[in-house]
């Protein structure tokens, strides 16, 4: 009797976990079906090599590269901001700051990640861009730069907190050993602590990149909607996510090729993040194994 009950409970729990698999399958099937339809009309080669993305124009071109470049550009800018800042902050909090300072600053910085991104978009558009324009007159009203910068600020805590966690996870005894041998704080931080936490730090950076790539509202509000194969951050660009939002909000009739293009874009986005997530997953595994 007890055994039956146990079995039933196990089955229920198994079903719960299977939902996540169904979710993935759902995502893949839905993206794939529509993308399959899409590729009936558009050549895959053109899709991945074309340099123009104009599905909503009369002269339709389906080269995803401009969206990818826009995505990568904003991501790159964001990482350029978040990586040095985040890492420095992590090291500082871990090695230099006293406990009370850290106890205040870390959650405060984490607030940055908790703010809804639509707020950042608003902020980038109405605050950062005008300020930047006063330095850089040629800066477009929508531009990759300001979106990227704000996004970078947003993901600082991803890097700083997760890296700090990784650094904190390094046994304190390692730090003591380093000091005991006569290391300065800087030497301790960079020669011992960071290498020891390296996999955790890398995971945090990868996750931050993945987050930046998938980020939607900031770029949708502030980076523009101009698919353009460029790496000039002063330009207005369009990211994959923006495109999906744009089409979702717009008057594009469903079942049209224009509409289906968001699935093709979506699967590209999915693919990009999927790779990064997998990398981080395996790294994390390694990380965990090494420390336990």
């Amino acid at each position, binding site marked *: 009797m*007890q055994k039956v009950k146990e079995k039933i*409970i*196990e089955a229920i*729990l*198994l079903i*719960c*976990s299977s*939902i*996540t*698999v169904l*979710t*993935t399958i759902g*995502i893949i099937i*839905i*993206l794939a079906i529509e993308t399959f339809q899409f590729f009936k009309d558009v050549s895959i080669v053109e899709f991945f090599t074309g340099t123009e993305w104009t599905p909503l124009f009369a002269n339709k071109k389906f080269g995803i590269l401009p969206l990818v470049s826009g995505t990568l550009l904003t991501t790159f800018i964001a990482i350029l901001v978040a990586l040095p800042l985040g890492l*420095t*902050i992590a*090291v*500082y909090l871990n090695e230099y700051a006293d406990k009370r300072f850290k106890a205040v*600053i870390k*959650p*405060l910085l984490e*607030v*940055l990640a*908790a*703010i*809804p*991104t*639509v*707020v950042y*978009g*608003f*902020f980038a558009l*109405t*605050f950062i861009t005008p300020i930047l324009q006063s330095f850089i007159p040629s800066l477009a009203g929508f531009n990759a730069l300001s979106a990227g910068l704000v996004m970078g600020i947003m993901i*600082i805590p991803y890097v700083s907190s997760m890296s700090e966690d990784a650094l904190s996870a390094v046994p304190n005894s390692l730090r003591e050993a380093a000091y005991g041998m006569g290391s300065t704080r800087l*030497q301790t931080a960079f020669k011992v602590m960071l290498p020891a936490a390296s996999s955790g730090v890398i995971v945090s950076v990868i*996750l931050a990149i*993945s*987050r930046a*790539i*998938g980020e*939607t*509202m900031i770029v*949708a*509000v502030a980076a523009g909607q101009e698919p353009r194969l460029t790496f000039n951050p002063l330009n207005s660009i369009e990211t994959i996510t923006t495109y*999906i*939002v744009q089409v*979702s*909000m717009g008057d594009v009739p469903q079942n049209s090729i224009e509409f289906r293009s*968001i699935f093709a874009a*979506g699967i590209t986005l*999915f693919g990009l*993040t*999927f790779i*990064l*997530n*997998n990398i*981080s*997953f395996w790294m994390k595994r390694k990380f965990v194994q090494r420390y336990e």
Partner: protein
Amino acid sequence: MNNARKNEIKDNAFKVFALVCTSVGLIVLGLLLYNIISVGLTRINWDFITNLPSRRPGKAGIYTALLGMIWVVTLTLIISFPIGIGAGVYLEEYGKKNPFAKFIEINIANLAGVPSIIYGILGLELFGRLLALGNSILAASLTLSLLVLPIVIVATREAVKAVPGSLREASYGLGATRWQTISRIVLPASFGSILTGLILAVSRAVGETAPLIVVGALVYVPFAPKTPMDQFTVLPIQIFNWTSRPQSGFVVNAAAAIIILLMFVFILNGFAVFLRNRHNRRVKY
């Protein structure tokens, strides 16, 4: 001595640099809050909260968006909570052996990183179209549930994992069954952390905009939703909507709504931090 001196200078230089870095983040945060508060604070009053949406900025309120948000979040919670905990418990407690569980684990790690907008697409197609829920609260909640499920599962797993194996062994050793062990020992011991994860998931759901846009929550709804099948809108979308309106009054409204939204988010996060600290202090293995 020379070498030591050099090291000392480097050490101090880094410290200054790091303080600057830290300030950058905080200054931006401060600017952001200041910017929004300076614009929006005056607009906040009881009417703003209880008014229905309107095309006139001065009359417009966030009532429906707020209630819509509460509906969506509550429903999301109700859906994702049991499933997420169930899945988390399964993976930690039952699934160690089978390859399927391992596969689920990888899968969850990936899902956690799937951009939210992809969930929007999934929700649109699966719940909106296939299940014909349209742009109802239920569709949105289901979508967000899937979105936050990985967070809940991961939080549950971490929490459950943090319960030392020796506690389980102790329970088994006393003759408890697996489920008795889980329900009486493991879950109570990890409940604090699970709750923390859950609140973080909720705070994530509160701020989500993109997937709901895709699902189609960008609608004018002049009434408080009453059933899960009602149409709805949520605060972030209301904000997004207002920011794209021509009248400058709406920018003020948007800022005011942002303040409310941030308050929600901060309270939730603060609560999570509080729980985490309390829990950490209480349970030391």
